[in-house]
Structure formats: structure tokens, C-alpha cells
């Protein structure tokens, strides 16, 4: 049976001025908030637990359980912080969500804050997307004016302030504790855990940090019910989510579907691999997840199945590369990214990503040796599980998985003294490889 697409968050994206309060309200927006404010907070938390919603930011931790970790109310502040720092290479779902329908997120923020007893919430948006920030600022203002935020919301006596905060360019701030340090006006470096944010988060107060898509999914769960949500997905990976297809596919884009859909099915909707080419490798969940090949076309894209196949569902960022693509080049560029974004706090990540980049560059440039391939694996071994946060671990994923799957391609870079691929063949526009340009660093 084919898995059908299930537009929920994206259902109104094609409507006139989809980002405005008017459009959202016409489509039933803020009904869920009304319902939620008439529901005991503990019941809301239980409903989200029962829905099986798991964190859509990559780690897949059960959202309701995260909310449940907050200690009992002591009368002092507690916070909700939305992680809108979407920066994992390949990941491009939260940005269109906030651009096309920011109110779904804001309604989710209001419901979640009410459920966990927070009176001040924050959306931490990466700074490099100014139009998204404009839309969020406007939507928050509209929500205040309509009485969905602010004092005495819907006349129910509940108060909530919502601050939308723009970051300033640092991938590490997607790590939840680094995000909190950044939101406190510091360098974005991860904190030692425990204490976890649920106990000591923002300003050392109990804090829930959730991804945009997780929070934006909450209104639909409250409005349509747990049974509706659990009717989608698999046994342990419930509901729908965005699958973001990019790269060598005919129709890249955002495909909202039940968890457990396969790449083969998604490719059918996306018009297949670009004409005349075939799938070589892909990431199931962004650059920090071990790569897959055509062997995994039928792997159900849920947390358990992807994990059992040796990778991670991550952010469902499916970056797709055809046979023209040099895997060493791809991995080298990801590794340069991790080196650039390593915050420098811990030695394995800071030094490891530096050396990995040097080795990969010399391999790609035809100056590597066979011993370099083993050195890559050894260096990865020195990082994985020894870094302070997940950034270091993520940096090793594409290297170890690609050597496992494409070792002969690495070796060909040594024996052939350089990259055997014509990079122009991978580009989406034609250009003559012979026409060189003066390359600047």
C-alpha cells in the first residue's frame, strides 16, 4: 500500500497571505488554544504524551515526557524556549513553516506554555533569515492585539509574554544548552548536563526547549485529538512530519507525510531522481546522520527502522546525490562545516575536526595516502563519544559511513592522484569544466 501524503502544517501554505492572522483564523486557527485554556494543564501534558509526539528537531525525544520532567511549580518563573535555529545542513523545514504560517507556531507556544505553567516564552530564530523574522514579529504583534498573547488571554486569567529573538550565526546554538547560553547573551557554548534544562535551563530556571515543528504540531493534536494523530505513523513513531527532499531530484521540496514513509515513495511524489541519473547516496536526517544508498530505498523512515539500518532519522533532511557526485568531496565539505562551527570548548571536536578537514582536503586534491583513510577512521574514533556535545559525534557520521560504503572511492583518490569525478556533471546548470576561472580562497 502506498503511504499518502498528509499536509497538516502545510495545509494552508498555498492560500492568499497564508502568514496572516486572518488566514489562520479563517482556517480554524486558535480554536485549539481556546480548547486548551479550558483543559487542566496536566491533561494537556498527558494528551501530548499519549500522542507519542517525539521531538522533531533531530533527537526524537518524546515531547510530552520532556514537559513532564519539569519540577513542581514553586511559584517562580519557568520558561518555554523554541529552538528555531535551523542550521543542520540539509534541514529546511522550519524556515518555510515560519515564513508561510507563523501562527501555527505561536498558537503551539501559547498552548505549551499554558500546559507547563510558563508566563514567558522565547523563540530563538537563527539571524540569517530576515524575512522569517519579519513574519514572526508581525504575527506575534497580531496575536497580542487579538488577545491570544499578553494579559488575561481569552479572558481566562492566563498571562503570557512571547519574545522572538534573532541569533547571529552559529550552528552550535541549535544545541539546546548552547542556545540557552546564547539567549542569555553569552557565547553559544554547550553546558555540562546534568543539570538538564528541565531543572536548570534559562536563567537557571526550569525550561522546556522544543523544536519549531514539534511545537507547531501541538495545536493540531489538541484540536483534532490524540487518536487522529496516532492514526498516522508507525507503532513507536507517531504522527506526520516534514520530509525535506533536496539535491538531485526533479521536484525538491517539503513533503509532509506520516513517519514510516519510504524514500522510494517520496521519490515518486518528487518526480524521481533527475532524469538520466540514478541514486548514489543520501542522508536520512541531515549531515550528522550516517549516509544511506539505494539499498535503503525501502527503509521505513521512522526512528526505529532508520536506527536499525545504522543511521538516524534526525531532521528528515533527505539530501539526495546521484552517481555524478564524488562522496569524498561531499564529506570533505561537511567536515569543513563542522570545523568552522565547532565552538572550541572541547578538545576532541576542536582539534579533531581540524585534522579531519586537512586529511580530507589532501585526499580530494590527490595528495593523500592509503594510510590517510585509516587515519580518518582513527580520528573519528577519538571524537565519537568523547566530545562534549553532539556536534563532534555528528562530524564523524558522514566520514565513517562513507568509508564503509565507498572505500574504493577513497582509494581511487589515492591511486588516481586526485578526484576522478567531473564536478560540472553534478551541477544543476551546464558549464564547461575547461573554462577555468581564477579561484579565490
Amino acid at each position, binding site marked *: 500500500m502506498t503511504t499518502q*501524503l498528509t*499536509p497538516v502544517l*502545510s*495545509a494552508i*501554505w498555498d492560500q492568499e497571505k497564508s502568514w496572516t492572522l486572518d488566514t489562520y483564523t479563517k482556517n480554524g486557527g486558535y480554536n485549539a488554544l481556546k480548547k486548551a485554556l479550558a483543559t487542566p494543564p496536566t491533561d494537556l501534558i498527558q494528551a501530548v504524551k499519549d500522542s507519542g509526539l517525539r521531538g522533531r528537531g533531530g533527537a526524537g525525544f518524546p515531547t510530552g515526557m520532556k514537559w513532564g520532567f519539569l519540577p513542581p511549580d514553586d511559584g517562580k518563573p519557568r520558561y518555554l524556549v523554541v529552538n528555531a535555529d*535551523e*542550521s543542520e*545542513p540539509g*534541514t*529546511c523545514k*522550519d524556515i*518555510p513553516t515560519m*515564513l*508561510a504560517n507563523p501562527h501555527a507556531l505561536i498558537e503551539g507556544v501559547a498552548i505549551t506554555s499554558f500546559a507547563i505553567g510558563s508566563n514567558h516564552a522565547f523563540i530563538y530564530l537563527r*539571524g*540569517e*533569515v*530576515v*524575512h522569517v523574522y*519579519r*513574519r514572526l514579529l*508581525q504575527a506575534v504583534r497580531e496575536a497580542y492585539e487579538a488577545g491570544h498573547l499578553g494579559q488575561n488571554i481569552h479572558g481566562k486569567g492566563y498571562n503570557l509574554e512571547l*519574545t522572538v*529573538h*534573532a541569533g*547571529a*550565526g*552559529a*550552528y552550535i546554538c541549535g544545541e539546546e544548552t548552547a542556545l540557552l547560553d546564547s539567549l*542569555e*547573551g*553569552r*557565547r*553559544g557554548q554547550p553546558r555540562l548536563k546534568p543539570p538538564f534544562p528541565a531543572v536548570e535551563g534559562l*536563567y537557571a530556571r526550569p525550561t522546556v526547549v522544543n523544536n519549531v515543528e514539534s511545537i507547531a504540531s501541538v495545536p493540531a493534536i489538541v484540536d*483534532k*485529538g490524540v487518536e487522529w494523530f496516532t492514526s*498516522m505513523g508507525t507503532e513507536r513513531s507517531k504522527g506526520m512530519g516534514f*520530509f*525535506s527532499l533536496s*539535491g538531485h531530484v526533479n*521536484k*525538491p*521540496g*517539503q*513533503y*509532509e507525510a506520516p513517519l514510516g514513509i519510504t524514500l522510494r515513495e517520496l521519490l515518486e511524489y518528487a518526480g524521481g531522481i533527475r532524469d538520466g541519473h540514478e541514486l548514489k547516496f543520501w542522508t536520512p536526517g541531515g*549531515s550528522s546522520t550516517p549516509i544511506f544508498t539505494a539499498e535503503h530505498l525501502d527503509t521505513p523512515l521512522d526512528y526505529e527502522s532508520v536506527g536499525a539500518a545504522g543511521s538516524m532519522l534526525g531532521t528528515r533532511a533527505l539530501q539526495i546525490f546521484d552517481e555524478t557526485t564524488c562522496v569524498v568531496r*561531499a564529506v570533505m*565539505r*561537511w567536515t569543513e562545516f563542522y570545523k568552522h*562551527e565547532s565552538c572550541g570548548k572541547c578538545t576532541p571536536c576542536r582539534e579533531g575536526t581540524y585534522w579531519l578537514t586537512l586529511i580530507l582536503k589532501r585526499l580530494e586534491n590527490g595528495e593523500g595516502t592509503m594510510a590517510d583513510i585509516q587515519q580518518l577512521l582513527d580520528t573519528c574514533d577519538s571524537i565519537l563519544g568523547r566530545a562534549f556535545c553532539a556536534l563532534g559525534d555528528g562530524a564523524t557520521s558522514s566520514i565513517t559511513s562513507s568509508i564503509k560504503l565507498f572505500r574504493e572511492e577513497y582509494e581511487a583518490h589515492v591511486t588516481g592522484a586526485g578526484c576522478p569525478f567531473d564536478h560540472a556533471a*553534478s*551541477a*544543476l*546548470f551546464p*558549464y564547461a569544466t575547461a573554462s577555468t*576561472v581564477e*579561484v*579565490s580562497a
Partner: protein
Amino acid sequence: MTYDEGTLAQLTADAQQIIGRYPVARSALLPLLHLVQSVDGFVSPDGISFCADQLGLTDAEVSAVATFYTQYKRRPNGEYQVGVCTNTLCAIMGGDRIWDELSSHCGLRSGETSEDGQITLERIECNAACDYAPVMMVNWEFFDNQTPESAKQVVDDLRAGKDVTPTRGPSKVRTFKEVERVLAGFEDGLANEDQGAGGPTLAGLEAAKASGWKAEQA
């Protein structure tokens, strides 16, 4: 600090508004640094002292934060920050070639600014628009599905003083300083400007509609 009286008064009033958004003043530091860039075009020594004054921090504490984040510039930035994504996906789809041609066309390496102060060229990391690869950002507005020709045209138009329209965003790209003011959290009235949601953004919805599918109603 060498700000004139009027500038300092405006900066101070804006800063108080920013600080008022947070339960703890120091949280205002990142938006304050954006605010400083909206006036000076970079994080100037004056700007660092200003932030330090406002928040009761030392200049060193402010500098330590400013130097951590790539959007804060340590030298006067061009009117237009042109960033070509050369992370893996975009690079392979053609971003590397776009970068090579654009860099050569402008005679600028990453981080350099043209002599006329118009263009700062930069290689950027993934900007969350992979379904529109290869991507370029100008003052943090989206220029999707670029080619070397389209990228060079954008830069030529900017240098010629022509209006340039992003593929997703407002009707024209605003200056670096104007955009930095938005990033400090001040609305500029452009939120409703739009060039359409974009094909890839709607691809899944359209495929679902073509098959008559929707998520079942409760």
C-alpha cells in the same frame, strides 16, 4: 564613545526598548550588537562600549560575545552582504562554480569588501533553503536556484544602484544597516511583501492535492 548626541539618544532609547523584552538584561546583548551594526555597519569599538555601558559589562565581555558569531562584522561591511552557500548540497548543485565565477567577477575573496563599499562577498554555510539549491543570500534575503549568470547579474545591479528583488522576500533588498535594525527586533513594515511561497515549499501540498489526499479530519 564618539557618537553625537542625537545618535546616542536614539541608540539609548532603542536599547532600553530591547532590554525591556527580557527578564534579565544581559539577554539583550545579541540584539544590541545587531542594533550597533544598524548604525555603524559593523561592531565598532564605540558600539562595544555602548553595549557594555547599557548592560553593565566590560568591553572585553562584549567583545568575547561579538567575536563568536559570524553575523557580527569586525570591519565596516559593504552595503550589501552577498553570501554564496558552499556547504555540501549547494556546492555540488553548482554553488562552488557560482562562488568561483562571482569571486573572480568581483575580484574579491571571502570576507572582502569592494572598494566602493557596496559589496561584501562571503562563502556561507547552510542557510536552510536546500530545496532551492544552489542558494545565495543578499543581506539575509533568499536568492534561490542561482546560476553563475544570475548571481553576477544581482551583484552588477546592486553596484549600479538598481533595486534587486529576492526570490522569496520583500520587493527589494534593503541595505545591510536597514536589515540589521530588523534583526535587532524592530519591524520595518515589509512582512506582507511577498514573491510567492516558492515551488519547493508547496511541492508536497500540490502533490497531495493532485491525488486528493489530506490528513483525515477528526
